[in-house]
């Protein structure tokens, strides 16, 4: 027996390294192979042709990246709402998607009722508070300390309820977001870029700026205010937080309210790009790979995860989608997240899962 001093650290690290090496080697082999096989073959189309296209038309590449960034910003905002709630209450909040729709719908609805735009906005924010309060009172409080799956199911129930409620009040047909009335810019900047041109929607730039401001505010709120610290305490340990006099109920209302504001912002941005409809609710499922990729409890994770998913799904769709008939955006994000998870089962920024016994 020669393997007497097997080091576990070596064993586990080398497994990771070996995985990467194998992946890299396979990729290199595929590229070389396809160059040998030549143009027109499937390997060539997958491994060489898209990259040649990138070099040929860098302006398109930049445009696609920008589109990805914009989509990524929205995913990140969606993910942010999920993470806020998951961190503070351990609830995997499926209803975040419908909260986005609900927020946007109430804004449009208030304005349609003849209320000035700014006042409508304030009223919508108030609406999100009412929603947060009601959810805490009716759903969360009776279900405290239940299994995470039960809470998850309850938020799906909440989603059903809000879909019905929203359609009952506002009607099921898609609506137009009051973009200009609340002061969002329209139009686009175009500029020449390496022989082509790139066009950036002003609205998208505004969205990115607003998202950044929102994240900044949340960071300050969490790190500098008393409530924010209490919130983090709750996230770490419910019972310990209770024992130092933090009331769980208030924290939950605040956190759901914060997620509601994030949802409203997301709804406005998303609504401005397309229109406000209940179909958005399904798009919100994209937030799942985002937060899982980032690590369920990490706010930076949600942001970076959102951008990774946004950019990679647009790149995949644009460069590889045509090979298989398009619309691969619908599943590519999940596979990307799955790929990341295979190497980091806790997500990029999630706390390491330690098996204890």
């Amino acid at each position, binding site marked *: *027996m020669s*393997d*007497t*001093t*097997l*080091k*576990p*650290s070596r*064993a586990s690290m080398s497994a990771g390294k070996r995985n990467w090496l194998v992946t890299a080697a396979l990729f290199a082999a595929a590229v070389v192979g396809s160059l040998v096989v030549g143009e027109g073959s499937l390997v060539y189309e997958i491994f060489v042709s898209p990259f040649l296209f990138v070099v040929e038309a860098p302006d398109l590449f930049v445009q696609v990246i920008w589109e990805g960034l914009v989509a990524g910003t929205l995913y990140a905002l969606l993910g942010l709402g999920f993470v806020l709630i998951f961190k503070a209450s351990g609830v995997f909040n499926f209803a975040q998607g419908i909260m986005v729709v609900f927020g946007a719908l109430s804004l449009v609805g208030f304005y349609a009722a003849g209320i000035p735009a700014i006042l409508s906005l304030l009223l919508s924010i108030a609406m999100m508070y009412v929603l947060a309060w009601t959810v805490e009172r009716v759903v969360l409080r009776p279900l405290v300390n239940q299994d995470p799956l039960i809470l998850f199911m309850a938020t799906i129930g909440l989603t059903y309820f809000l879909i019905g409620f929203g359609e009952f009040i506002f009607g099921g047909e898609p609506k137009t977001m009051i973009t200009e009335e609340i002061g969002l810019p329209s139009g686009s900047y175009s500029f020449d870029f390496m022989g082509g041109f790139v066009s950036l929607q002003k609205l998208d730039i505004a969205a990115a700026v607003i998202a950044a401001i929102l994240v900044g505010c949340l960071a300050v709120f969490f790190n500098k205010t008393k409530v924010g610290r209490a919130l983090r305490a709750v996230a770490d340990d419910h019972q310990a937080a209770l024992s130092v006099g933090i009331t769980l109920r208030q924290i939950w209302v605040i956190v759901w309210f914060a997620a509601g504001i994030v949802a409203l912002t997301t709804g406005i941005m998303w609504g401005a790009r397309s229109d406000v409809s209940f179909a958005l609710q399904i798009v919100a499922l994209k937030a799942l790979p985002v937060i899982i990729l980032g690590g369920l409890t990490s706010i930076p994770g949600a942001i970076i995860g959102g951008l990774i998913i946004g950019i990679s799904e647009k790149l995949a769709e644009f460069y590889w989608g045509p090979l298989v008939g398009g619309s691969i955006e619908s599943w590519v994000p999940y596979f990307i997240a799955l790929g990341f998870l295979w190497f980091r089962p806790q997500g990029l920024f999630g706390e390491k899962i330690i098996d204890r*016994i």
Partner: protein
Amino acid sequence: MNTAIAEIQPGKPILAMDHISLSFGGVKAIRDVSFDIRKGEIRAIIGPNGAGKTSLLNVINGFYHPQEGIINYKGAKRNDMKPYVAASQGIARTFQNVALFAGMSTLDNIMSGRMLKMKVALPWHIIRFGPAEREEIEHREFVEQIIDFLEIQAIRRTPVGRLPYGLQKRVELGRALAMEPELLLLDEPMAGMNLEEKEDMSRFVLDVNDQFGTTIALIEHDMGVVMDISDRVIVLDYGQKIADGTPDEVKNNQNVIDAYLGVAH
């Protein structure tokens, strides 16, 4: 890997740990510990909290793998043994914080200890009657003996999550016994028990050792129990072995007294 397993005679080491070191990142949980466990004995591992006792058990049954040292189990080197391999080679254990299957009944928990002995393939389980059922009944008989032995007939059908702590510990012992282990590792089997429960548990441990000839390594904080039931004791402190010997030898060892009562280092 050498898989030839020799039959170990009573009194000969069934397990030998040679200069074992284990660390997590920068934290050294076990430093250069050597000792052996002889077939048929009750070996106690004691030491203050955080001394590395549980880590040591985790190393023995393959849950952690030591960075340095040699583990020799039944005459074969076993450094990177996977937990289920350890289980299949006769190492069973209980846990400090009961690790039962909370949603399953007492009966099912103990039956799950027979998992490795049940061989009938999936297709037979689909129709159940025939080999699958015969096997089930055969193992049920064995499990019922354990239930009788541990005097837990009354809670046979109760989901273990609803049982009081003392009974859970007993069920966990039952699950380990169902594996018919050669080496039984008990992690604080009497923690949190009242005197009566401790007496019961001590009796079970002694009976298991006596009736089935099972080798037992146990971690325990109650010195009275340790001194009463164990053949040899190893004392750990800060991951190092500070004493090893019969209860009497250990009791009078100056290092041990220092470790427990505390001295200025």
